[in-house]
């Protein structure tokens, strides 16, 4: 996700606020798009959601369908947390605060999933 950045030069022109870039262009893999980074992320979220629904409802299900849908869902969640909740620029302690419970409950959930029925 580090490849998506708001163009710093433009951000300075329209207002570089604190640690957040509020520029009106976005650079992805070296290409500049005339949209704010928030809008680019929104478009990506929309496209991935369409892809998820298509995988679930249109295409026949295979062995990789569920892992792929989980991966897409987690990618969407990561995009929101990274760009909209500003974990990409804010203090690392915020990320740690989020990650500790996420890791703990993930381990607990995985444990529950392997417990046999009726045990």
């Amino acid at each position, binding site marked *: 996700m580090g490849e998506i950045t708001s163009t710093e030069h433009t951000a300075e022109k329209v207002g570089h606020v604190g640690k957040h870039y*509020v520029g009106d262009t976005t650079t992805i893999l070296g290409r500049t798009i005339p949209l704010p980074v928030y809008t680019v992320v929104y478009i990506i979220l929309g496209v991935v959601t369409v892809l998820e629904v298509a995988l679930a409802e249109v295409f026949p299900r295979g062995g990789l369908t569920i892992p792929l849908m989980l991966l897409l869902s987690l990618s969407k969640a990561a995009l929101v947390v990274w760009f909209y909740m500003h974990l990409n620029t804010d203090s690392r302690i915020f990320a740690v*605060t989020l990650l500790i419970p996420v890791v703990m409950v993930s381990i607990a959930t995985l444990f529950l999933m392997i417990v046999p029925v009726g045990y």
Partner: protein
Amino acid sequence: MSEASVQQAEHHAAEGHHHNPAARAENLKFATWLYLASEVVIFSVLIATYVVFRLHSPEVVEHFHEGLNEWPGIWLVSINTFILLSSSWAMVMGLRQIQLGNRQGLIRWISLTALMGTLFVLFQYVEYSELSHKGITLYYNADGTFTDFGMRFYAPTAFHGAHVIVGILWALFVVFNARRGGYSADNYAGVEVFGLYWHFVDVVWIVLFTLIYLI
């Protein structure tokens, strides 16, 4: 150093900290992240309960998904998902506007956020009505098909819906505060903290949508 001078130094330090907007904003955000961490645990319990049920009773969930194939079914939920994603975008665009010093822009975007949150709740009500007609209720249903499913479905989705309602009220408070001149390009911590909450609610829905409706 005497006790009195220590107390005086602490008082000055506390006062200086209080009047430092950047430090106050960081503290507010940290407090919000701690609160969201507790929310992660609560939602995870509800999600884990559903996931374990999904693993042990796949036929019930498949039956539920078959029911979603009838109009409006999955399409209503998908539209609702887009509405919530759009509301998150509107929220962050509102924050961008106040960071650029445009208070009217903030008011417009956050009002749009509140409007889309309201639409989400209304569509969720429509969805619940449809599901209850299909026998998916909180309690034991006549043919026993969805016994045990109802609570595992409604608990996470309705708890999430309750969070959206709280978010709408919070958005309206932000709009009210903005109209009174409460935020500026140098003072927008209140908007940022609301944004953290709203985006968290969006993230929870992203996970619920995939786990409950698609998989």
